[in-house]
């Protein structure tokens, strides 16, 4: 591959190159539709992009315009993206679960003139807000189901636009090639909105050069091959899918596979058998719990096999992570384990052919990574973001569960005095759209301030702990990250949620635990522990001891000062209906700490019991009062 020439540095040119090189001979992408995998060659990919681009141009799209795209992972997303880029426009990805008011903000803030959406659901959202969006010229949709009788003149079908483009190409031959040659590496390719912990979301602008640089250094590490299968399931509005899916396939020629529906991914992944896969942490967690649930249900003999071979897997994973080459005997044992258990297990969850599996975000428990490495799935952790691009990644054979790996090629990482991670490199974004002040605030001498707290370990692996602002301070100024501990606690099958507490008034860290009723209940039944309700179960001395052991385990993996010294098992579950959790099951820390203020005082007091009287509201509107006694427990060591 000819690296780094200016000619290569825009995505439309990369597409043109692949088209000239592979044309009809090779498949570029595949989508399951109507129960059948339909493939598109590089020629078809190129032509869809070309004609859709010309269609947009015919409808009035100009260089520098913004095109918002709102849909699930489908070939049309990629085509719309590249078509916009070919015309010199910028693509703005919007998440499909956004509500109309959020979409309105993104469309207004980005000055979008075209919106390209998936289906009726998204069309309805746009039609609801279209009066307030005078800049929008066309609303283009690719799945016409349910839209047969819509007659808003702003709407147009995807194929209609392609047909327009085809005509336009006949009357204006060579236009597309001209447009592509005008696109420069410095042009803004995508705007990714960051959720932003404070204030409104900001649009991070990434140039073609940013994305190509990011993908090149990633490719340098993992060398995806043409013909290798990639399953596209990351939200395309996210910079990582832009780098791995869109640019990754354009540069390496790997084949992109789109699932039929978000609900069918588990089925589709088995059919594809991808070699390259990127799941968010939650999805990996759900794969593990799916396996665990199936193991519980399987025959005793199979369960026995699984339980006897899993430790072997763990042993091998440990050897590999410490850069040691396992000897002949462990290798033989692992081959046995693979043959009898892991091979079938991986096949069931579609991970048989995985060469590189990825996850990102500090929010994954190291135990999840360790588990996948144990069954022979090469899972790696990355660190990155819309602004900083991709920063670090695990290299094969040097995987440390607690870290996000060493820096990507070409990226510099340093730490500020407060422990904030600073980044410099060609990946780093060009600025926030229309908010350059915010950009300047975050850059000093070319170093980007990530607002993430972390450190580099002895092997120069990056360890990301938490957002700077989410760190808490204990008496005496020692900092700790509640979230860091909570994530590790949540990996325990017996703990569903945990709130880790500590502030400048306190000497030590403590925790409120929400036990996992199902698993703890099953555990109790096996030991003939009789219980009635959730409250009763949570306060059983045996259960308290069980949770204490889990806390001790987690305590071993965190710095001395941030170990949980006291805890109590909450008498009820954290509940979204009571605003204790968000709808996505994230703990609403401030609210919960406030609600249980007295309880927290009791934890730090010297009593061993806490009485809680609560008013409860029945469904029919009556209210009642219940008194519960909760044990305050200590953890030694």
């Amino acid at each position: 591959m000819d690296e780094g020439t200016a000619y290569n540095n825009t995505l439309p040119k990369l597409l043109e190159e692949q088209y000239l090189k592979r044309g009809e001979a090779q498949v570029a992408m595949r989508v399951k539709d109507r129960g059948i995998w339909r493939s598109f060659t590089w020629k078809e990919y190129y032509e869809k992009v070309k004609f859709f681009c010309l269609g947009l141009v015919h409808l009035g799209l100009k260089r520098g315009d913004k095109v918002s795209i709102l849909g699930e992972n489908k070939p049309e997303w990629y085509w719309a993206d590249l078509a916009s880029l070919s015309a010199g426009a910028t693509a703005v990805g919007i998440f499909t679960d956004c509500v109309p008011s959020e979409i309105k903000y993104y469309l207004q803030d980005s000055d979008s003139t075209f919106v390209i959406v998936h289906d009726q659901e998204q069309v309805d959202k746009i039609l609801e807000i279209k009066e307030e969006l005078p800049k929008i010229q066309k609303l283009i949709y690719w799945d016409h189901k349910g839209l047969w009788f819509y007659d808003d003149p702003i709407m147009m079908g995807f194929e209609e636009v392609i047909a327009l483009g085809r005509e336009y190409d006949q009357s204006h031959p060579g236009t597309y090639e001209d447009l592509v040659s005008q696109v420069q590496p410095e042009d803004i390719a995508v705007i990714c909105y960051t959720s932003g912990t404070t204030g409104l979301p900001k649009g991070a602008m990434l140039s073609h050069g940013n994305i190509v640089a990011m993908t090149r250094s990633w490719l340098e590490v993992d060398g995806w091959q043409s013909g290798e299968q990639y399953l596209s399931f990351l939200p395309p509005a996210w910079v990582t899918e832009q780098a791995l899916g869109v640019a990754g396939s354009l540069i390496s020629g790997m084949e992109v596979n789109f699932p039929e529906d978000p609900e069918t991914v588990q089925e589709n992944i088995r059919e594809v058998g991808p070699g390259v896969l990127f799941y968010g942490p939650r999805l990996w967690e759900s794969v593990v719990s799916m396996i665990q649930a199936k193991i519980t249900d399987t025959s005793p003999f199979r369960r026995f096999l699984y339980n006897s071979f899993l430790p072997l897997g763990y042993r091998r994973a440990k050897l590999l992570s410490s850069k040691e080459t396992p000897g002949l005997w462990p290798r033989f044992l692992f081959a046995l384990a693979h043959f009898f258990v892991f091979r079938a297990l991986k096949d069931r969850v579609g991970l048989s052919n995985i060469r590189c599996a990825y996850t990102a975000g500090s929010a994954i428990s190291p135990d999840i990574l360790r588990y996948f490495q144990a069954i022979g799935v090469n899972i790696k952790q990355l660190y990155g973001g819309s602004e900083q691009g991709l920063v670090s990644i695990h290299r094969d054979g040097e995987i440390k569960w607690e870290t996000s790996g060493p820096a990507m090629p070409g990226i510099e990482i340093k730490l500020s005095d407060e422990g904030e991670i600073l980044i410099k490199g060609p990946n780093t974004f060009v600025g926030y759209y229309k908010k350059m002040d915010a950009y300047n605030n975050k850059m000093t001498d070319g170093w980007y301030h990530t607002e993430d707290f972390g450190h580099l370990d002895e092997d120069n692996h990056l360890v990301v702990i938490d957002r700077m602002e989410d760190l808490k301070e204990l008496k005496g100024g020692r900092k700790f990250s509640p979230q860091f501990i909570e994530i590790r606690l949540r990996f325990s099958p017996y703990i569903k949620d945990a709130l880790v507490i500590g502030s400048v008034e306190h000497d030590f860290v403590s925790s409120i635990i929400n036990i996992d009723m199902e698993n703890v209940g099953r555990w109790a039944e096996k030991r003939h522990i009789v219980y009635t309700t959730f409250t009763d179960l949570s306060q059983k001395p045996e259960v308290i001891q069980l949770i204490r052991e889990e806390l001790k385990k987690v305590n071993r993996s965190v710095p001395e000062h941030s170990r949980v010294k006291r805890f109590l098992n909450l008498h009820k579950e954290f509940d979204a209906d009571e605003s204790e959790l968000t709808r996505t099951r994230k703990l609403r820390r401030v609210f919960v700490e406030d609600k249980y203020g007295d309880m927290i005082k009791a934890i730090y007091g010297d009593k061993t019991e806490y009485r809680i009287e609560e008013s409860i509201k029945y469904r029919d509107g009556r209210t009642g009062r219940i008194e519960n006694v909760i044990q305050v427990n200590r953890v030694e060591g």
Partner: protein
Amino acid sequence: MDNGTSILKVEDVTLSFGGITALNNVSFEVGQKEVFAVIGPNGAGKTSVLNCINGFYRPQKGRLMFRDIDLTRLRPHKIAETGISRTFQNIELYTGLSTLDNLMASRHIHMKRGALAAALHFGPTRKEEIKHRAIVEDVIDLLEMTAIRHKPVGLLPYGLRKRVELGRAICAEPSLLLLDEPMAGMNVEEKEDMARFILDVFELKEIPIVLVEHDMQVVTDIAMKAVVLDFGNKIAEGSPMEVAQDTRVIRAYLGEED
């Protein structure tokens, strides 16, 4: 509103079982562009109407005309061949087969090849199967059943089985669709989904629908016209809003005031 030419005529139908009169001189017409609801309290004879239309019951008196075919003396499988397809209140599916196979089974009346050709499965037979599969896949897409395509129907939750049943009825490419309480036993969300699917089917496939239902809310949401039965007698007919305000209908539903 133009409800199109009349496609189904029920004329003075009387059906009795021994001394019980299930239907007494019931008449109504269903238009080509109509979602037509048959409503009434329990035991009013709603399902009996559907059973007469598709030939499970034979009325003692009266006539049922579908286009220009007299259904009154036809056997159920012959009626199915005229293009009338239905769902059942208590779900009648092959529970051991997958969703896909259940839907393929309903294509049976359109399959022309014999058993031997099907067993050999090459050439035209294969082509035929591909054609039928494409039709079935369109329905799977329309009713959002991709995730349950290969799941045995017996393992599906109730709401989804109802959906599979609707799918099976549509796969037969009917020219008249009879739905027997498609929303019975569903929660609000499932009802909303089902209502949307029924309207989608009606709009896209342009199939007239006769719907038996006792939930007035559902009827006012999706039907254009309704007939109300009480103890086998037709007591009202008109738009759902009209019949909902009819005093006789309110009396039948809520009981008589002393």
